[in-house]
């Protein structure tokens, strides 16, 4: 297996007296979909926010491309090429697809917005991802369905030549057909050589697209396994009990005294 693109080692994080993450190791590999699963309160969101630079970490190391990096905020992480696609999407309804994809990073020529270049690049990106679901890059986002919006949000991350894309529950609010579209897109991102982190509650989705699965249980990594080595029920056990067969935490942390 290739070297991880992004790696966290021994990360601990507490909020006051609540110890949320215990010595968490987490790695993202290029060209692979790493699923991050866990029950509510397992620490998924906290881990994502640490990767995104929104939260600092108490202890632990942050490696990018094998080199330790100092991360002090979201901008540092974005500069490394890590994009987070949040659940609530962060698109402006009143702007069109092109305008949204370039939001905050508009191309200008002589101080004036360079619309042709932006539109052409937006189209290029969407076609490189084989997006068939939107009619025009000049449609306003208000007219898009949930799946199309998710597509635009993901395409936005790709447009900026990101190396890693974190997707927070991308299919949570979607119907069957739209989920299908988004999962296909997730797979294509990885095929383009990006490192993809998929946070999801839906085990069917996870097993379908993920290459690796990292299961969190009460703030600890219960397992970090290749997706084809585990079954649906094993993942569920890892999420709910922290162990399953030979995988998992050896002792029950709930009784071991956290």
């Amino acid at each position: 297996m290739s070297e991880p693109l992004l790696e966290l080692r021994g990360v601990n994080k507490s909020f006051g007296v609540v110890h949320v993450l215990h010595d968490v190791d987490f790695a993202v590999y290029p060209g692979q979909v790493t699923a991050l699963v866990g029950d509510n309160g397992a620490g998924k969101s906290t881990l994502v926010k640490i990767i995104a630079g929104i939260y600092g970490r108490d202890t632990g190391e942050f490696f990018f491309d094998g080199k330790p990096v100092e991360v002090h905020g979201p901008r540092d992480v974005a500069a490394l090429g890590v994009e987070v696609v949040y659940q609530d999407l962060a698109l402006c309804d009143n702007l069109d697809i092109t305008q949204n994809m370039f939001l905050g990073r508009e191309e200008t020529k002589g101080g004036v917005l360079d619309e042709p270049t932006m539109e052409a690049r937006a189209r290029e990106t969407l076609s490189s991802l084989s997006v068939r679901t939107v009619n025009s890059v000049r449609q306003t986002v208000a007219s898009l369905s949930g799946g199309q919006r998710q597509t635009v949000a993901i395409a936005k991350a790709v447009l900026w030549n990101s190396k890693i894309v974190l997707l927070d529950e991308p299919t949570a609010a979607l119907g069957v057909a739209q989920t299908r579209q988004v999962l296909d897109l997730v797979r294509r991102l990885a095929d383009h050589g990006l490192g993809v982190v998929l946070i999801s509650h839906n085990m069917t989705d996870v097993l379908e697209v993920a290459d690796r699965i990292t299961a969190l249980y009460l703030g600890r990594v219960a397992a970090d396994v290749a997706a084809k080595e585990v079954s649906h029920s094993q993942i569920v056990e890892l999420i709910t009990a922290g162990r399953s067969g030979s995988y998992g935490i050896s002792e029950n942390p709930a009784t071991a005294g956290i």
Partner: protein
Amino acid sequence: MTTETNQQPSAAADDGSFAGDTVTTATLGTAFQDYINRLRGGDMRSLPAILGLIVLVVIFSFASDTFTTRLNIANLMTQAGPICVLALGLIPVLLLGEIDLSAGVAGSTGAMATSLLIVDHGQGWTVATLAGLAVGVVIGLAIGLLVARLGIPSFVVTLAFFLGLQGVMLKFIGQGGSVRFNNEVLRGLAIKNIDPTAGWIGAAIIVVVFAVVSLRTFRIQVAQGLQHPPFSLVLIRIGLLAVVLIALVGFMNQNRSRNPNFPIEGVPQMLIVVVALLILWTFILTRTRYGRHIYAVGGNAEAARRAGINVRRIRTSAFICCSTMAVVSGLLLAANTGKVSPGSGGGNALLYAVGAAVIGGTSLFGGKGRAVDAVIGGLVIATIINGLLLLNNAAWINYVVTGGVLLIAAGVDAISRRRRSAAGV
């Protein structure tokens, strides 16, 4: 009706699979159909305002003999000037979904500073005007910081400024008093006209520049295989602008004086100011990053923040723009009336401007609106004021009608917003 769907040029696409992408609205017919669909979906823009304007003009021209005289139409245009400029200033604030109730009074405070500097301190009109505009910047900065940093609702902050600034004007001018506003240059904005030939040249330049820009954009869009309107629509737009400008300049260049010895002809200077500011704001809002960011913050402030846009700075700057534009409007108003009194810009001046922007199609909910909306809406409001005045109606009717129109405009805005979210346009 034929719809031609162009494929993405294969050079740009991996496998041409972005095939659902419609590049061109092929015919004028389909473009018109799109427009109808947008209207049905609640995206009416300034159409209600234009229809309203036509209805009002028809009603008043039947009801009053003097309404359609050249002098009165020109007079109406000058009356509309301060309203249009104030409404233009409100556009960035309204686009953010905020409101500035103090704009009218802030404008007159700036105009008061200008006229006091000229009358009491013997300053030239340039220094005095710059000082007046600076007053606007300071007021806007204060409002902006209170709204963006402290997080007080803009309604409350600007209501406080609305009251406070009226007190300031009362202090400087004195109860029942007023300051002369008779500087030749500034007063000329309302009472002087430009040379008829200059009017034609100006109109020609605007049409030519618009045509060149439109055709160039169209050529680039076609060359790069981007989405573009049918060529006929581009030509129609250019033609429409040319017709409007030729009609306007042609009308204004006719002698409209009642006294044959003193001809009045040429485009009023006030109109030049309005057109210049309209072009400026259209450019800022549609062609610059700043304008794009205003729309983004108005559409979804959280998304804008995550995209790295400094939302607070955008908010603060919008209020600064608004108050500064308000001072321009205050100066035009003072030029119209020849004085600044403590009540200038108070009363319904601001509601006229808010009404103008909203009637023109700017949403009170933020994120939607254009600079030209403000000017069209301003004309509607000015027509109402002018027409009612000619009918010799009592002041109470004026208030009731203007209030009613504002309510109707806001109602249309709310309904079309609901339809938009239902239709997803």
